[in-house]
């Protein structure tokens, strides 16, 4: 149901996924390189920068609006008679004695400072998010490596031994069942690690907008 909603699909039929959670080891990337890429590619940073630029230009526009516009044009007077027609010109402009757009200029200047502070905050939050996701992913990778190197072979050997004991009728059926349950629980733990790893890696790649391997090659 959640997948249907996030993908913008109708609630029914429920979407099924093809494939399995396959873990690909993450390449070694320097944190500075990762943060530089995030700084370059994150859209919320681009949005904050554009908002700051917009506020600066609106401030400049408010200063320009303090200058009065010039109104000019021709003028014709017709007396509806044989004589008396006149032609002239009209030039007009405000005299900025009282309203020199001071209020709008002050407001825009404050907006510029606000947007600058928001940009700083966005930068800190974004880079922290990326760094935290990478550290968490490295931790998941370490645990998965340990599991595949040390735990997985033991689980496979244990399962084979249990099957053999079951075939040889060495153990009682309830003991066999209990041991196999423990093996399945260890597989579930391994599945949870794969799930965490895949989720973190995909999130990080979406955050950075590129596969992690690209950063490794470039770095």
């Amino acid at each position, binding site marked *: 149901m959640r997948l249907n909603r996030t*993908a913008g699909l109708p609630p029914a039929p429920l979407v099924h*996924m093809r494939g399995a959670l396959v873990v690909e080891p993450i390449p070694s990337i320097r944190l500075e390189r990762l943060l530089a890429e995030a700084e370059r590619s994150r859209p919320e940073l681009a949005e904050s920068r554009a908002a700051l630029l917009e506020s600066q230009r609106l401030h400049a526009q408010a200063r320009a609006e303090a200058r009065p516009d*010039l109104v*000019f044009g021709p003028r014709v007077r017709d007396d509806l008679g044989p004589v008396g027609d006149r032609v002239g010109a009209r030039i*007009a402009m405000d005299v900025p004695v009282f309203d020199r757009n001071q209020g709008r200029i002050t407001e825009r200047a404050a907006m510029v400072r606000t947007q600058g502070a928001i940009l700083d905050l966005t930068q800190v939050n974004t880079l922290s998010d990326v760094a935290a996701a990478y550290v968490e992913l490295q931790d998941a990778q370490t645990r998965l490596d340990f599991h595949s190197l040390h735990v997985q072979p033991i689980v496979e050997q244990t399962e084979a031994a249990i099957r053999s004991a079951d075939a040889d009728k060495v153990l009682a059926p309830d003991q066999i069942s209990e041991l*196999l349950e423990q093996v399945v629980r260890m597989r579930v733990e391994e599945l949870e690690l794969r799930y965490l790893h895949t989720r973190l890696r995909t*999130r990080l790649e979406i955050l950075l907008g590129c*596969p992690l391997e690209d950063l490794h090659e470039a770095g």
Partner: protein
Amino acid sequence: MHRLGRRLARCLAATLWIAVALGSILSAGCVRPLGQAWREISRQTVIEEAAVRPADPSSTMAVDEKVSPREPVGIRASFQEIGDAPSPRAGEFSFLSDPPPDQGMTLEDVLQQTLDCHPLLHARVHEVEAARGRLVTAGLLPNPQWVLDSQSPVDLDDATILTTRLTFTLPTGRKRRWGMAAAEAGVARSQAALARETEVLLAEAADAAIEVLYLQELAVLQGELADHTR
């Protein structure tokens, strides 16, 4: 009193005559071509929208085998194309005519489906269009103003006086330039907001898809566990 009425009638007749003359000039030389041009622009926009909208909604569900599971870059690039193009109107989402396949979707399918169909992204695309409209408005010069005054003396038997003036407003201090620059930054900001929203949605969709994969595998293992328990 009689004289006053006569003068008023004369004044009104003169004003009407000028208004009719100007109206005929405008209808012959300006209004009709502008109307035709507007109709052509509208028709062209409709044609362009029809051309950009995917002809076959099922194509959005096609599986591209060449796409690696680790390539959000291609997805981002494909979204930029979508962001530049007019989106379907409300109620024209492709999923209505093309439900997801029963055999399951890949992660790329899910992400592509999110880009193609999510209503929030359609809303953001329209916001970018609105920002572009504000850019057009910011670049326009103020319209000239035409004024016609007529006055007639009440007591004297003088001629009616008609005064016409056409005034142009000249913006000073680079107001238009700064206005357009601000509107351009507004377009960039709305495009960045669209990109940010896209990434949020893609991250959520990817998270949900990976969770479904996890739950599918977990269900298999729990089935095994249940077998052993029995």
